[in-house]
């Protein structure tokens, strides 16, 4: 019982949810299906966070997944290629298992071609499959299980339907299997908003947009692959972030050049060498060859010599895209001397670190909260489906909901973001931070530098608390704003309580 904040900020909540689940399992012990469902939920609390990667067709979902894992595990292709929901989990050895809708799971052979995984369904139609599960020993999957989904608004409505039921399973009334979603879009379309909305509002513990991040994928293609495409993409992301519609639906918007990130994370020396040879060609000639993909493919003379010596041109285009080749050669010309340096530079410029940072603050740090939320949602559904309105179990769930200030925070955060609750601008920013929008650690909430001492924390927390207490009695505020102030006050009190050593 020292004064340091607990290592896992949501441990108490997790435990309470765990207990409620056990209690429920006991209550439903004579109903094996319900009990099994609850058991799953309980197990899920200890598993890595499940993050689904969703988006429209060809938004670059598999490419981004590979970039996040750091290995080409998910097959990518020019046509529509992901047709079955595919889970990528950390495992001891590579393993692929196919789960049909009915019948026992079927293990599939693990085949790799050019380092990439090739999945052969052995002629099973995609419609008959529930999911594929790929176990893959990878550091990138240790903390999170990634779920690749088929594209929405795809030509085959079947494929799209599979994704919708996966993410928004209204139809069969089972809780969603993903704890959080990374939503990929090339630009914001109405269908994108629909899908993001599917994530909002699901039962009691819901809160707008707490578990979704939007990514402008294929950012390198903005502005026809100009060398400054990423700058443009970032400013577009910035605009979306400020847009009320989007704010209400997701935590953050980041721009990522998926292909660049994937290639950067898996760069081979031969590829670096090919790019390095390209820059020896006179600049005008190279630029003329890089005007279009067809020109690059057809180019003869110096370009052909440079490229064909090692890598195949089509492969190079597939790996880098015109933008990647343009950027890569420019970087080498500016003094990037070796393959690892180029890889690092490509990754840095792809925007992947931004995404990883956001994933960390929004998802990984809140892992237990999101997990607890998923589990409570499931439990609530079970109770509702059962028509149970009284009894100790219902009271227990209600108690968790009423006592868990974390949920109130989430809810207010969502309300602030979607504009349901309005505070003056400067206050809203501070309120969001205090409620944990940037991360749950007390320093982050109070806006102090990392490693601040306890005394500083306490001082800051007390000042903030007083300020918000004043806000709460401001007669000019409406009732909702005042209630929001009280939530923030409670948050501040919580921070102080965690700091203050307890005396016997």
């Amino acid at each position, binding site marked *: 019982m020292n004064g340091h904040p607990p290592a896992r900020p949501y441990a108490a909540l997790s435990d309470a949810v765990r207990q409620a689940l056990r209690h429920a399992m006991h209550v439903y012990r004579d109903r094996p299906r319900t009990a099994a469902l609850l058991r799953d939920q309980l197990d899920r609390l200890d598993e890595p966070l499940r993050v689904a990667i969703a988006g429209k*067709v060809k938004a670059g979902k598999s490419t981004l997944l590979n970039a996040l894992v750091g290995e080409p595990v998910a097959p990518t292709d020019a046509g529509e290629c992901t047709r079955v929901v595919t889970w990528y989990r950390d495992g001891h050895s590579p393993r692929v298992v196919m789960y049909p809708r009915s019948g026992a799971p079927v293990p599939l052979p693990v085949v790799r071609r050019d380092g990439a995984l090739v999945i052969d369904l052995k002629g099973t139609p995609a419609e008959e499959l529930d999911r594929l599960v790929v176990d893959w020993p990878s550091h990138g999957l240790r903390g999170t299980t990634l779920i690749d989904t088929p594209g929405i608004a795809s030509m085959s409505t079947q494929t799209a339907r599979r994704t919708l039921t996966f993410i928004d399973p209204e139809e069969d009334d089972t809780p969603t299997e993903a704890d959080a979603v990374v939503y990929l879009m090339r630009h914001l379309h109405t269908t994108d*908003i629909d899908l993001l*909305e599917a994530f909002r509002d699901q039962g009691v513990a819901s809160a707008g947009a707490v578990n979704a991040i939007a990514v402008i994928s*294929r950012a390198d*293609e903005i502005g026809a692959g100009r060398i400054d495409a990423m700058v443009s993409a970032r400013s577009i992301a910035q605009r979306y972030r400020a847009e009320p519609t989007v704010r209400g639906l997701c935590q953050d918007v980041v721009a990522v050049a998926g292909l660049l990130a994937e290639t950067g994370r898996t760069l081979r020396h031969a590829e670096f060498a090919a790019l390095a040879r390209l820059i020896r060609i006179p600049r005008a000639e190279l630029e003329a060859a890089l005007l279009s993909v067809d*020109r690059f493919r057809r180019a003869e003379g110096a370009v052909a010599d440079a490229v064909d010596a090692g890598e195949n041109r089509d492969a190079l285009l597939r790996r880098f895209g015109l933008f990647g080749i343009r950027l890569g050669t420019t970087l080498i010309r500016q003094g990037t001397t070796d393959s690892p340096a180029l890889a690092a530079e490509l990754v840095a410029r792809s925007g992947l670190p931004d995404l990883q940072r956001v994933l960390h603050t929004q998802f990984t740090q809140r892992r237990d909260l999101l997990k607890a939320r998923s589990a409570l949602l499931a439990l609530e559904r079970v109770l509702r489906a059962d028509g149970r309105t009284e009894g100790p179990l219902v009271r227990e769930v209600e108690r968790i909901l009423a006592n868990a200030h974390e949920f109130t925070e989430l809810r207010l955060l969502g309300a602030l973001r979607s504009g349901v609750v309005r505070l003056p601008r400067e206050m809203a920013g501070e309120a969001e931070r205090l409620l944990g929008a940037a991360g749950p650690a007390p320093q982050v909430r109070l806006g102090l530098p990392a490693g601040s001492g306890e005394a500083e924390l306490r001082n800051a927390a007390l000042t903030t608390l007083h300020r918000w207490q004043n806000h709460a009695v401001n007669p000019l505020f409406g*009732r909702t704003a005042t209630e929001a102030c009280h939530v923030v006050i409670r948050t501040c009190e919580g921070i102080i309580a965690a700091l203050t050593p307890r005396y016997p």
Partner: protein
Amino acid sequence: MAPTAPVEVVDFALATIARYGRPDLEARLWQARVRLTDDSVRVLVVGEFKQGKSMLVNGLVGAPVCPVADDVATAVPTVVRHAETVTVTVVRVLNPEDDLAEQRTERVEVPVEELADHVGEGGNPGNRKGLACVEVGVPRPILAGGLELVDTPGVGGLSSVHGSATMAALPSADAILLVSDASQEYTAPELTFLRQAVAVCPNVACVLTKNDLYPEWRRVAELDEAHLAAAGVGAQLFPVSSTLRWQAVLDNDSALNEESGYPALVRYLRRRVLGQADRLGRRSTAQDVLAVTGQLAEGLRAEQAAQRDPESVQELVTRLTEAQQRATELRERSARWQQTLGDGVADLNADIDHDLRERMREIARVAEDTLSAGGDPTKTWDEFARWVQQEVAAAASANFVWATQRARWLARRVAEHFSEDSDQLVPTLRAETIVPQRSVQPPTMREVEPWGIGQKALTGLKGSYTGMLMFGMLGTLVGLSSIVNPLSIGAGLVLGGRAIGDERKRLVTRRQNEAKTAVRRHVDDVIFQVGKDSRDRLRAVQRELRDHFTEQADQAKRSLQEAVRAAETSVKTSKAEQERRLREIPTELAKLEEVRRAAKALLQQAPAKPASAKPAPAEGAGTAAPERVQAG
């Protein structure tokens, strides 16, 4: 030495007929002349946003006319046409709430530098300035033939509002270019759009842009062609690269230009689209000139006959008077074509209305079933409302397309009946050119509007089908939300836990009923509004057809009157005068014959640019070429 260009032929004819003092016939030729010089060939450039529509227009024109940006760029339709100097004109509808016929527009010329402020999403987000369109005139040879390129805001977009507005503009277009980039194959909405477009527009082409950027563009092109074939859309696909085109324009590099794929597209526009418009122009001009000179020659021949053989004058006059009587009957209400028109419009009105109601009722039925089955509607109301809107908008579009086809068919029937024994040109149905729909309710916004999406979508909604569709829906949305607005956090929490059981069931049923009423009211609003719009449109078509044919009947009647008068006066004239007329008439007839020859030559000539023209085999079979209705 004989005039060959249509305008010259008209001028020649005008000069020749000036001596007959027939202002009604001259007016007809003047109309033809105005049509020839002013009528533009409109090409709509449509597609989802960020596909490179503005770049395509710029590439075609060879000048940076439309603002291009990495973020969503085009907010207002931009019309690019030929002009001697660069001009930018902003067109604003002054009274968008009023009826279509009473809408007035205001045109303001603005400095060229301000173009982006009006057109661009940056300077005019969501068309906040409420512009109907922006017209840009540029001195470019490709536009000199009357080509008019219309750059539209994206079909889908953040608010899919633009979609239906685009739909309404389709029938007035001579060609439609659907722009889609090579990053992916066609999506379902794009194919739906194409299917509707080919139903109302004769020339639909698909443009695959950015093929410089995507290594797999050939595969995407193949996939797209397969989709087109599967959907039964006979549209040609043009892969292009605007980047290469620009570079080619900058460097004046013709090889690069050929590589950009633009020349093929330009050829298509020139030969197929302009060529077709040119043939249409020639045909209708020839028709007008032949009709006018024919009537005059008829009169002269009657006079000639009377002068030669005074005995037969009485018989001639009787014959002519009978003909005149027929012409008079033709313009009476009891004439067959008038009846065809009247009945046809009435039938059409009923059919279209029925079709609309049928479609809407089906939507309402599905919506109500969904609501009954779906539990508390407030949780899914946003998505549900959007679904209803989409369905309703799609149904209204389909109804519109169908109505257009039927109206065209009716016009043909009327023409057929009007003229049983001579070729008769169907007037092109341009009455429906601009269709900015009014909104059902004036856009009243509340001070505190908790619906973020609503606000976003409301901007720039005025003036489109979907605009009005959304308003109806939004109104009900606000109403519903006030009951269950989760404004209070504390209360929300308590409610969340307690509202279970009977209380909850009762609440849910009530909300379901409210939602159903909302849907029904919305559908009713739409039926009312769309129905009114299509009735207005039909009335305009009816009026145009009636005026057109009545005018022709009047002209024929007047010509016959003249002939009767000439024949009658011939009896009273002196011998010397008679001989003079007999000498004069053949010369005059020869002159008219010369004009007629020139007019007939118009029908046979190859399209405007013989050097580059090698007519494609499929040409001429276009559905929009004015049907010549054969006798009987």
